[in-house]
C-alpha cells in the first residue's frame, strides 16, 4: 500500500460523515439509473441485445480489428498496435518525441491508467495534463482515481478548494463548486490552447467506418483535440463494435447506466485528422487476448466501463475505491484484477457479499458476482484458499451473522487485525451504526459457502 493511498484513505475514514455521504451519494446515482431504465419499456431487451453484440464482437475480434484498421487508414488515420503497456507507452512517447512535443492535454483514459502512461511520459520530460476536472483535481493532489466514472467522488469540496488556492490562486476559503469549476475552466483553457498534442480515450471503435467515439460531459476531449496538430487516441481491443447501428444500442445504455443521464453531453465521432493535422490510433492488447481463452470469464470483455457496478455495490459504497488493491475498484475491478494476476490480487475477492446487485444492473450483462464466486472456488488452486477464505468468513459472514456485535467498537479491536482490507478501511461502522444492513444475499452466501456450489 503506497503512502499516497494510506494518506487518502485515512482522510476518507477520519470523517464518518463523508463515509456516509459517499454511500448515500452513490446510491442516489444508482436510483437515477433505475429511473432512467424504467423510462424505457425496452430496457431489458436492450441489455440483452448489447450483451449479444458484445459476444459477437468479442468472438470476431481479429476480423473486426482488421476491418477497423483498413477503414481508419482510408480515413487518413495512422493505426498502431501495442501488445503490452510498455509498447503502448513507447509508441506514445515516440510520437511526441519525434515532434518535439512537450505538453500533452489528456482526456480520461482508463487504459492510460492501466499502462502507467502518465508517469512513463513525465519521467521523460513530457508535461501530461489531465483535463477532465475530476482527474485534474486528483493529479494536482497527487492522488489516483477512486471510481472509473466519478474519479474524485471521495474528495470533499474543502480539499479541492484548498488545493486550488495553492495551484490556481483561487479565493481563500471559497469552496463553492460552481466557483471552483469555473476557475478550473479558465486555468485549463490556457492549457488547451497551448498544448502541442491531445490524447483521448475511446468509448467505442467502429469497425465498419474506422472511427472512434468518445463520450464526455465536460467537453474536455473535444476542447483538447481542437487546437494541437496531433491527436492520439488509444483503446483496449475489446472496445470494438461492428458498425454504427450497434452504437445505437450502446449509447442508449452507457450514460443511463453510469450516471443516470439519457446521454452524455457530447458523443463525439472522430474519423479523419483535422485539416493539416495528424490522427494516430493505438490498438492495445495488454492481456486482453489471453482473456479470450478463459471460458468462465470471457464475458468480462463485454464491459463498457459505465461504472454502475461500483455505484450499486454495498461493499464499494461503504468502503471506497482505495480499499481495493487494483486500480479499478468495485465488482468489475475485482474481476479484472483476478484476470491480470490472481495470486497478487486475490484478496479483493473478499470485497463481495454475493448479493449479485452488480450482475442485475450491468448494461452489457457481465455476470460479475457469479464470476467472483467462481474465482473463490478456484482459490485452492491458487494456493490462496486459506488466507482469503479466512478473510471472507472473518469479514462478511461474521458481519452478516452478528451485526449487533459491531455496535460496540471495543469488541472489534482484537478482531480487526484479521479483517479483510475493505472492512478495515470501512472501520466497520457502516455495518452497525444504527443503519440498515447492506442488501446482502445472506442466505445464498452462507449456503453457497457451505455447500461449495452455486445454488
Amino acid at each position: 500500500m503506497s503512502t499516497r493511498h494510506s494518506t487518502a484513505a485515512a482522510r476518507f475514514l477520519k470523517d464518518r460523515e463523508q463515509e456516509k455521504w459517499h454511500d448515500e451519494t452513490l446510491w442516489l446515482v444508482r436510483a437515477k439509473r433505475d429511473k432512467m431504465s424504467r423510462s424505457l419499456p425496452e430496457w431489458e431487451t436492450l441489455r440483452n441485445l448489447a450483451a449479444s453484440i458484445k459476444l459477437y464482437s468479442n468472438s470476431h475480434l481479429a476480423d473486426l480489428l482488421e476491418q477497423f484498421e483498413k477503414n481508419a487508414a482510408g480515413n487518413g488515420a495512422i493505426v498502431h498496435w501495442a501488445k503490452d503497456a510498455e509498447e503502448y507507452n513507447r509508441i506514445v512517447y515516440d510520437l511526441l518525441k519525434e515532434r518535439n512535443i512537450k505538453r500533452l492535454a489528456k482526456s480520461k483514459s482508463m487504459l492510460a491508467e492501466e499502462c502507467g502512461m502518465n508517469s512513463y511520459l513525465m519521467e521523460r520530460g513530457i508535461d501530461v495534463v489531465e483535463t477532465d476536472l475530476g482527474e485534474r483535481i486528483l493529479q494536482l493532489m497527487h492522488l489516483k482515481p477512486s471510481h472509473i466514472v466519478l474519479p474524485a467522488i471521495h474528495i470533499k469540496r474543502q480539499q479541492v478548494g484548498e488545493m486550488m488556492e495553492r495551484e490556481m490562486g483561487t479565493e481563500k476559503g471559497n469552496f463553492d463548486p460552481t466557483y471552483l469549476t469555473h476557475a478550473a475552466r479558465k486555468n485549463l483553457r490556457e492549457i488547451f490552447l497551448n498544448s502541442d498534442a491531445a490524447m483521448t480515450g475511446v468509448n467505442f471503435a467502429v469497425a465498419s467506418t474506422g472511427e472512434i467515439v468518445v463520450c464526455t460531459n465536460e467537453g474536455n476531449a473535444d476542447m483538447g483535440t481542437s487546437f494541437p496538430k496531433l491527436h492520439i487516441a488509444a483503446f483496449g481491443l475489446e472496445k470494438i463494435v461492428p458498425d454504427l447501428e450497434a452504437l445505437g444500442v450502446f449509447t442508449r445504455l452507457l450514460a443511463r447506466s453510469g450516471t443516470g443521464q439519457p446521454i452524455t453531453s457530447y458523443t463525439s465521432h472522430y474519423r479523419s485528422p483535422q485539416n493539416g493535422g495528424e490522427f494516430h490510433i493505438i490498438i492495445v492488447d495488454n492481456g486482453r487476448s489471453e482473456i479470450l481463452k478463459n471460458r468462465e470469464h470471457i464475458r468480462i470483455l463485454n464491459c463498457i466501463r459505465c461504472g454502475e457496478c461500483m455505484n450499486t455495490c454495498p461493499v464499494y459504497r461503504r468502503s471506497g475505491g482505495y480499499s481495493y488493491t487494483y486500480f479499478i475498484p468495485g465488482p468489475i475491478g475485482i474481476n479484472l484484477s483476478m484476470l491480470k494476476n490472481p495470486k497478487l490480487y486475490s484478496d479483493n475477492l473478499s470485497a463481495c457479499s454475493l448479493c449479485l446487485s452488480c450482475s442485475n444492473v450491468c448494461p452489457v450483462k457481465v455476470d460479475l458476482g457469479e464470476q467472483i464466486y467462481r474465482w473463490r472456488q478456484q482459490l485452492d488452486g491458487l494456493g490462496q484458499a486459506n488466507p482469503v477464505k479466512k478473510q471472507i468468513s472473518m469479514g462478511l459472514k461474521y458481519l452478516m451473522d452478528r451485526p449487533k456485535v459491531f455496535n460496540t467498537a471495543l469488541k472489534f479491536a482484537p478482531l480487526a487485525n484479521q479483517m479483510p482490507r475493505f472492512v478495515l478501511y470501512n472501520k466497520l461502522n457502516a455495518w452497525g451504526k444504527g443503519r440498515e444492513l447492506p442488501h446482502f444475499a445472506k442466505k445464498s452466501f452462507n449456503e453457497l459457502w457451505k455447500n461449495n456450489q452455486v445454488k
Partner: protein
Amino acid sequence: MGSREEILGNIRKNTLFSFEKPSYEIDSIKYEDKLQAFCDMLKVAGGQPVFMSPDDDLDKLISRLYPDAKRIASNLPDVKCAVYNPDEIENSRELKNTDLSVVSGAFGVAENGAVWIPLNVKYKALYFISESLVILLDKREIVHTMHEAYKRISGERYGYGLFMSGPSKTADIEQALVFGAHGPMSVSVVLY
C-alpha cells in the same frame, strides 16, 4: 505496425467460441409527440429549446436570448448579428473570447435531447470554445431514438461529427452539477 501480427495471431488462437451477429431490430420507444419529448429531454440536459415562428427575426431572437453577447461568430449567412465569420480566421486559437457561436444542426433525438452536428464549420473548436451556443434546427427533423439516429447517419461521410445534448457539465466536485466545465455554459436550440 508494432505487434500487429502477434496480437491478431493470439486472438485467433485463443478465440474459443463464435457467437452469431444478433439482429438489431428492437421494438423501441415511440413518442406521441417527438418534438415535445425532444424539448423535455433537452431541458433535462440543461439546454433551452426556443421556438421561432416564420415571421420572427433571427437576429432579434438571438439578442433577446443573449443580450450581453458581443463577439458573435457564425458562418451562416442568415445570422446578421455575427461580428465575424469563424471560417475566415487563420488559426482556431483566434476563436478564444467568443461570447456566442451560432451553428446549425442536422436533426434532434427525442429520447435524449441531443442534436447531431456533422462538422459544418472550418474548426470544430467553435462548438466548444464560446461561452454560449445557439443551434438552429428544423423542428421537423426529430427522430425518436439513437437507433433511428444511427440508421440515418450510416453511410454519411463526415470527418468529425457529434451528438450534443445541452451544455457542457460536470459534477466532479461533490456531485454538485455545474454547467460550463470546458464547453459552452449555455446551449439554446432554436427550432424553426
